[in-house]
């Protein structure tokens, strides 16, 4: 295991984050605050409690997940796409490092950044609503598993993309709708039965439900199912990444 190389990639990626601190940290915090002002204070005060939780507090886990999914995905996608775009990928391909090590470096850094963001949003939320976290360890576990899973998806998108457009298209057209329809702002139990069943095909439902359970002890689907599905989603990109490096798909001719 070339841990020095993993550390080098990780450090390089984290330095990129710190260089763009304003857009990396400040903008999600501002947009989350706006969500709270609109949904928590303005509209939320007129919405009745969901599962015995005030609406403002109810949306906190969903909002964190929303940012977590988007940030993990775009960070990792951009992290590996950029060397491809500039050509510096030659160095990565010619270095004595294994695919696993490359993934560890890039995905680790992207996940670290989005986890930090998630926690910052959590702290921001605490300023607006009364928060209590019933299962903090599980909360962290869901946070980490989700960040890693989506960073891995992002990594694959970054390898697949051959233009900036493709880099944007998946987060915009797939992940954001899935996150919004996955119960970020509502419990899927509020939906008509038919749409509840449809929602269950949406992987994000399991992530948000499990995450919300860690906060308030209530969930749309059972916690075991949430955790199981999260692990399945982790395995899928893992298999894809292994295949990519084995064949050199989109990386080597």
């Amino acid at each position, binding site marked *: 295991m070339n841990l020095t190389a993993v550390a080098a*990639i990780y450090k390089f990626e984290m330095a990129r984050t710190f260089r763009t601190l304003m857009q990396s940290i400040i903008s999600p915090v501002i947009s989350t605050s706006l969500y709270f002002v609109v949904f928590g204070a303005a509209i939320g005060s007129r919405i009745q409690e969901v599962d015995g939780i005030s609406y403002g507090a109810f949306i906190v886990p969903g909002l964190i997940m929303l940012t977590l999914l988007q940030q993990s995905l775009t960070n990792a996608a951009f992290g590996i796409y950029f060397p491809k775009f*500039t*050509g510096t990928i*030659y160095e990565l*391909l*010619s270095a*004595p490092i294994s695919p696993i090590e490359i993934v560890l470096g890039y995905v680790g850094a992207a996940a670290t950044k989005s986890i930090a963001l998630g926690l910052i949003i959590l702290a921001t939320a605490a300023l607006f609503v009364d928060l209590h976290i019933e299962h903090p360890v599980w909360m962290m576990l869901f946070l980490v598993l989700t960040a890693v899973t989506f960073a891995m998806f992002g990594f694959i998108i970054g390898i697949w993309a051959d233009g900036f457009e493709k880099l944007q298209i998946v987060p915009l057209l797939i992940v954001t709708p899935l996150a919004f329809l996955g119960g970020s702002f509502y419990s899927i139990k509020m939906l008509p039965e038919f749409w509840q069943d449809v929602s269950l095909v949406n992987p994000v439902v399991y992530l948000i439900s499990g995450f919300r359970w860690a906060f308030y002890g209530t969930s749309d689907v059972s916690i075991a199912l949430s955790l199981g599905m999260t692990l399945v989603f982790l395995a899928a990109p893992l298999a894809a990444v292994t295949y990519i490096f084995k064949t050199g798909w989109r990386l080597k*001719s």
Partner: protein
Amino acid sequence: MPVFPTAPAILTVSGVSKTYEGGFQALKSVDLEIARGEIFALLGPNGAGKTTLISIICGIVNLSTGQVTVDGHDIGRDYRAARSKIGLVPQELTTDAFESVWDTVSFSRGLFGKTKNPAHIEKVLRDLSLWEKRDNKIMTLSGGMKRRVLIAKALSHEPELLFLDEPTAGVDVALRREMWEVVRKLRDVGVTIILTTHYIEEAEMMADRIGVISRGELILVEDKTELMRKLGHKELILHLQEPLAAIPPGFSDYDLSLSAQGHSLTYSYDTNAERTGIASLMRRLAEEGIRFRDISTKQSTLEEIFVNLVEERA
């Protein structure tokens, strides 16, 4: 020029072919052995397969058939050991933009699994006249400076085998000479160097051995001085006082040619022959009353040899 015929090979390429997905065959069963410590120049026109060959050895392109070993390590099975011995300076100026020179060079060392060694990085930067620029962002550097950064990155992990893919393309004369100096210094400390170049002058000045690649085939590998001796010939040019209408009869033994206006007579001869024939030619010319006001000689350059070789195959 030192040649190392008995030194163990640091690089062995056997039967390497590459066919790209579109069906284009970039390499056709290339065999090559590079001795430790030599400077090898790979010459060839654009699209001949130079970069493909280098990319395969370095792990950037997959080979279709064949085998490559670096210091005995197979580049596929034992890629870690093989790659850690290689430094690559790519042809394109592919650098990061926002990182500082120091950071990007240190990053390369880390990528190759070497522990931090600021003293070594400092030495590399100083050797390449980059020390003053160590804190500058790469995007603020000139093209020549970026080229040096790429060399510094390749040297950051102390490679034993260095690939320079057109290191002096688009580099001014002063910098080119400086780079040659760097290459010589590297060779002096035992680094094996493989360079591709368009500047035949470069190969002529630097290389111990020369390989010529054309249309994916390695058509020739030869010791440089041997190559120039074998394929090179010399010309003696006599600038005449009175123009001649034709080469006078009785000179058919000599390989002579007359210039268009008859103002100069060119004699081609083999420098390695026991007798060059110059003295007797001079005597005969004097006897015929042909007088000349000046003489000059010209040796065929590697460039001419190269062009002839590639054209022969085309």
